[in-house]
């Protein structure tokens, strides 16, 4: 894995972060540090601000107070900095967001060619390498509309990896998938975790959190309520709200357990 000279700076450092949507206070004094190579799972009830938090990390959402430093670069209104951070941070979305007018391969080489100025041949080689890693090299010439949801999400992972990012953000990557497709996507994510990628993942897949995460962050009402190692968090949540949340997702948690 390529490392920056400043090895000891954290991959992501968020200090006293606040965000408002108009009068609505979405994020309240959030502090989070993610070390290089660390895997953090963010969970919490819907509307707790977890998606908003990770969307702030690559400036899909603007924050109003506090600081976010990614890979040693502070996020400000400076467009050059935003560009640099977005180049180094890959993001996966709930509904994949593949480009429907481009083939799988074209989806994968678009950003390397137009952002990193990688020669097309080289970009194609890299893309095929990552498509093999997500186990769909044979679909390279198809269009996203011809693939299943699970396949599309795996292409989206390959598309991110082609930019050789230092950090990957996952915004509920399996929430729009059928149960039998969740596994194929999670398997790829577990593989990815084993390569040492820094990952911040918003998910309700508790099985995934158990096997992969170094740390689980529980959010409610725009705040981080609890932070712990996965075993400790699932075995003995410290706060009442976390206990209630875990109780709810585990009681009809076939999907969570099955994954």
């Amino acid at each position, binding site marked *: 894995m390529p490392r920056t000279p400043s090895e000891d700076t954290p991959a992501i450092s968020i200090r006293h972060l606040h965000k408002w949507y108009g009068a609505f206070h979405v994020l309240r004094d959030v502090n989070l540090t993610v070390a290089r190579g660390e895997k953090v799972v963010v969970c919490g009830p819907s509307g707790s601000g977890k998606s908003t938090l990770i969307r702030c990390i690559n400036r899909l959402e603007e924050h109003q107070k506090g600081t976010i430093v990614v890979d040693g670069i502070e996020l400000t209104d400076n467009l050059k900095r935003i560009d640099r951070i*977005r180049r180094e941070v890959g993001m996966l979305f709930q509904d994949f*967001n593949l480009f429907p007018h481009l083939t799988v391969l074209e989806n994968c080489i678009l950003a390397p060619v137009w952002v990193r100025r990688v020669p097309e041949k080289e970009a194609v080689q890299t893309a095929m390498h990552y498509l093999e890693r997500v186990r769909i090299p044979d679909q390279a010439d198809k269009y996203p509309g011809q693939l299943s949801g699970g396949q599309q999400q795996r292409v989206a992972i390959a598309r991110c990896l082609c930019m050789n990012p230092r950090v990957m953000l996952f915004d509920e990557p399996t929430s729009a998938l059928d149960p039998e497709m969740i596994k194929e996507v999670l398997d790829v994510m577990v593989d990815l975790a084993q390569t040492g990628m820094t990952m911040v993942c918003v998910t309700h897949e508790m099985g995934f959190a158990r096997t992969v995460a170094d740390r689980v962050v529980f959010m409610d009402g725009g705040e981080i309520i609890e932070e712990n190692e996965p075993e400790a968090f699932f075995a003995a949540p410290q706060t009442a709200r976390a206990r209630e949340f875990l109780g709810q997702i585990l009681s009809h948690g076939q999907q969570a357990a099955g994954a």
Partner: protein
Amino acid sequence: MADPATPEPKGPSRLLHDRRWRAVIAQAAAFALVAALLACAGLNMARNLERAGIASGFGFLDQVAGFEISQTLIEYSRASTYARAFWVGLLNTLAVSAVCIAASTVLGFLLGLLRLSPNWLAARLAGVYVEVVRNVPLLLQILFWYIAVLNPLPPPRQALDLGGVAYLCNRGLVLPWPQWERGGLAVGLALAAGLALAWGFAAWARRRRVRTGRSLPVWRLGALLAALPPALAWALADARVEWSIPALSGFNFRGGGTVEPEFIALALALTLYTAGFIAENVRAGIQAVPRGQIEAAASLGLRPWRVMRLVVVPQAMRVIIPPLTSQHMTLVKNSSLAVVIGYPDLMSVFAGTTLNQTGQAVEIIAITMLVYLAVSIVISLIMNWYNDAMALKGR
């Protein structure tokens, strides 16, 4: 084909219950009805024309027209035939339509993008423009430009001086006009070739950028490439050109070329009006692209205009093209409003003056209708071809 367990009934009743045969019978009945109506109308018309003593047939096309036309793209005089007048009118219609289709499409795209711009003022101004232009009748807009803007312009002697070579006055826009002694055609063709070359070069440079990651100064090299062939042709053909510069002489300009006020008013009104509608089509098309597409492209590090060029516009085009086609066709048909300000288009010259002089309404209206129909079909075919090229695959 038939299920062996249930034998098909024989005889005519079988046909009556067959889905395909029923469709054929219904079509045949509808056709017979339409044919009968047309035959009835045709017979009736022929009898009435005969009773009124009006000639029929297309022989009138070879007769001398005997009227003047103020603006002609081809040679025409009072002694020309009605057929020649028809071509003059048709070319005038096509000329104003071509200019307006190109201009309104460019302006419409700009306005549509501007309306979605994060710049508050630009977006509002574009919005106000679109609402005003779309909600005022086109006829009124044509009259506005002709009567309220161009007509009050000063006479030639007090003309507005545009840099000492071109003048704007109530006789129109007077421009310097090249008069080629020799080599005009060669230089013209070479210029077209140069532009095509520059365009091809830009496409090649884009592919090279994708292939190798290295970019070229496309604009500067492209301009050079476009200029090279005409310069070469000029030298080789030893071209001689005399620029006819407009100069005041008495009460009017002498020399130069004139764009008549009727053409300017009609072109302005049609362009500005249609651009308002095209802007709305463009806006709708861009807004039809899901937000997630823009977010995904941005999160990969693509700059905003690359997001637009590579991700948003290609997807928006499939929503934009069908209504854009109908805007282009509407524009051609709307150009017939030229009648009110006396721009000699097909409607005015042929379905107007020619019809009045010959009285052969049936033939003339039929020809005129067929011409507009043919133009619309050609536009539609071109746009359908383009639409197929832009369509999403794998759906």
